[in-house]
């Protein structure tokens, strides 16, 4: 149960600018959910701390919440609140 997996997270808008790149690679447990990934992102990238509760996540192009599981190979994205139009 200690298996780890590496996930690549695509970043957009302010999150992309704050991090200074359009993707980040993180390691989480093989049974991790989005909530775990959120914690790991803040731990690894402390400059995102002010955004912690605002960060939105998508898994396979659908909005995810903290309980959404991360399957190996899933397309994961992280971004700030949206505002088109």
């Amino acid at each position, binding site marked *: 149960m200690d298996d780890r997996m590496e996930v690549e997270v695509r970043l*957009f808008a302010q999150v992309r600018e704050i991090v200074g790149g359009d993707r980040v690679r993180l390691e989480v447990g093989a049974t991790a959910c989005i909530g775990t990934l959120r914690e790991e992102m803040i731990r690894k990238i402390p400059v995102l701390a002010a955004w912690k509760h605002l960060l939105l996540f*998508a898994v396979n192009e659908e909005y995810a919440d903290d309980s959404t599981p991360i399957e190996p190979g899933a*397309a994961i994205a992280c971004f*700030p*609140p*949206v*505002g*088109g139009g």
Partner: protein
Amino acid sequence: MIRLTDHPIQVEAVLQASRSPDAGAVVLFLGTVRSESQGQTVACLEYECYSEMAERVLHQLADEARSRWTLQGCAIVHRIGRVEVGEISVAIACSAAHRAPAFQAAQWLIDQIKQQAPIWKKEVFADGAVRWVAGQEPGRTHPVGPGGSP
């Protein structure tokens, strides 16, 4: 016609895509870039999107609009990239047998697009300053940003 584009939106094409002989009303909504924001002169907007997901969300919203109202046609085109003052950033056209569902669907669509489509915009001011426009979280109706409520 549901798409993102980095070229000027062709309004006539959006209208044509939504028209139908069975429609008695066509409602066209155009979002356009305003020259002023909070007292500052805007030079242009720069739109960024998560394109794969944004297209998917626009299709899902159009499908939902069609399930909520009986529409003859529904077209959505959203600009990405740099959009100058006065240019169209988003066009929505809905047609229906009668005007009420066409008006209602078009308004619902622009509200939902602002809340759900993974699209962001940055204001570029005449003095060169830039500012991200505070976005919305899906399900909320007020803009949110860091430094506000946790």
